[in-house]
């Protein structure tokens, strides 16, 4: 097979597996985890745009998720919008916020960008907890509605069912991955990669690096906003807890574990960060410690993540069968 064709084999195979999964997996809880993992795929793709492509670590993914989640929920419950319209608005609101806060923070580089974005996440969290007349504070909002039923060709799709919601998140996750893929292979993606490698050179070449950084940051926030809205309408209950800094660290972990700067990495990483706590459930108290250790060891010994490692192993494996 030519190299062009093989690039599509693995994505299509995994997409097929994900499409068939609800038919094969009969345990409802696994489907529940599957939906969460797909939501995290969207977050991780967004995180990867900034962290993996551009080389700027943003610690605000969960904050923007929270903005999307609360925006969509409040538009539905307070203004009586349809869930679909609210969900479509959620990424726009997250993106708008990203434009406003991105401007000052993208003036600093490296670690300081990380710190500033983390401060944003903290501010969002503080506001969600304290602005209780709007957000319900720590006790949260109950009864977040599911999306309205949808009729195509006489079939009615009921989003109260897990299967329907699974496919909704799958479509969104696939869409997010495709968008990131398109960005990566466009001129914009090339500039982002160039910024990661040598930002002063990009500036010196007459390219306005900050515009591209801003684009990556805003798109990433929009993806997190979608993920937050999907999360809110799926769980049906909303409080600030899942939107704290530790969840943003989870997004970073997903990108690092999977393989930063690759398209498949965030997908693998998202499934891992949703699956890992389930495995570590027996040792809830050790969860943080194991997580932290994993992050440290991965960065030291496997800085490129699992996907490039697997790709390398696969390359070695196939080269065994090739004619010399």
């Amino acid at each position, binding site marked *: 097979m030519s190299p062009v064709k093989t690039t599509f084999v693995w994505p299509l195979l995994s997409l097929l597996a994900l499409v068939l999964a609800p038919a094969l997996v009969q345990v409802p809880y696994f489907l529940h985890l599957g939906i969460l993992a797909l939501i995290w795929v969207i977050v991780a793709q967004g995180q990867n745009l900034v962290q993996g492509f551009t080389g700027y670590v943003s610690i605000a993914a969960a904050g923007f998720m929270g903005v999307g989640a609360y925006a969509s929920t409040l538009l539905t419950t307070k203004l009586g919008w349809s869930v679909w319209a609210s969900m479509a608005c959620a990424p726009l609101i997250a993106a708008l916020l990203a434009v406003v806060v991105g401007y*000052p923070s993208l003036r600093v580089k490296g670690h300081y960008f990380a710190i500033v974005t983390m401060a944003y996440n903290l501010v969002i969290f503080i506001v969600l907890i304290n602005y209780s007349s709007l957000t319900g504070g720590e006790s949260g909002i109950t009864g977040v509605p599911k999306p309205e039923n949808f009729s195509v060709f006489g079939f009615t799709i009921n989003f109260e069912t897990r299967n329907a919601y699974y496919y909704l998140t799958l479509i969104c996750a696939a869409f997010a991955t495709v968008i990131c893929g398109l960005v990566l292979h466009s001129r914009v993606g090339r500039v982002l990669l160039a910024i990661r490698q040598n930002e002063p050179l990009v500036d010196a070449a007459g390219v306005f690096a900050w515009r591209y950084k801003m684009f990556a940051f805003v798109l990433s926030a929009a993806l997190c906003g979608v993920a937050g809205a999907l999360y809110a309408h799926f769980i049906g209950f909303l409080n600030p807890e899942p939107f704290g800094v530790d969840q943003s660290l989870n997004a970073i972990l997903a990108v690092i574990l999977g393989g930063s700067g690759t398209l498949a990495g965030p997908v693998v990483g998202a499934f891992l960060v949703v699956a890992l706590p389930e495995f570590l459930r027996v040792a809830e108290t050790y969860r943080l410690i194991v997580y932290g250790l994993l992050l440290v060891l991965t960065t030291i010994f496997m800085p490129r993540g699992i996907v490039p490692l697997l790709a390398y192993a696969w390359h070695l494996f196939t080269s065994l069968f090739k004619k010399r």
Partner: protein
Amino acid sequence: MIEFLQQVFNGLAIGAVYTLIAIGLTIVFGILGIAHFAHGVVAMSGGYVTFFLIEKLGVPFFVAMMLAMVVGAILGLLVERFAYRPVQNAAHINAFIIALGLTMMIDGLNLLAFGPDQMVIRTPFQSVFNLAGLVVTELRVYVMVTTAVLIVAMSFFVSRTKTGRAIRAVAQNRSAAILMGVNVNAVALVVFGLSSALGVAGGALVGAMLALAPGLGESLVIKGFAVLILGGLGSVPGAIVGGLILGVSEALAAGYLSSAYKDVIAFLVMIVVLLFRPEGLLGKK
């Protein structure tokens, strides 16, 4: 007016703690170029050790704090040697991600060892003076004096000893320092030890003034970085000025606006500085 002075006084005390945390961060950043995010949890661990020494072994406060600073310095050495040094030649962002991992780990270990409850370090300094309406608590005075003494001691060490000269040499020009026979790895260890000891002092003081609780380490280190952004990266005078400004503005915000949103105001100050003076108040262009 007296209320204003009261808030400023309280703000200076908490600002002194921010300064101690920020000086540790700024020397690590200025000399080694590492954004040592795990500094906050190291400081907190030191606070817990101080608490443990006082409550379980009956050690007097300042002795307990000194011992905790030694423990913290050792923890700092371990962190440098086993977590940061393996990635010293990789991209800077890797060190930062490692710092995040360390933060989670040490936080988890603290939670395991000391539990999730709030703990206040008991001190014998409970007197309260009244200066024409201004309420001056003895503890806050001790916090400021301790901070001042530690800063003077650190400056003395850096400016007058041979090791200090090596540290300054590495800060100015790493490769030239190597060529002059300075052992850069040893300097890194000393810097981390020094920085962690100062941080632990900050942790112990904040534990005495407010309380120790899980998550405080993160909030301390973020304040510390906010101070660095305010004062200028790698600048010790910047850290002092920035820490005091942050402490006072936070206290004023809590007193006059809203205590729930005081952290928001601290971050707003930081963002405004970024917008208008990205190099910090005392930083070089």
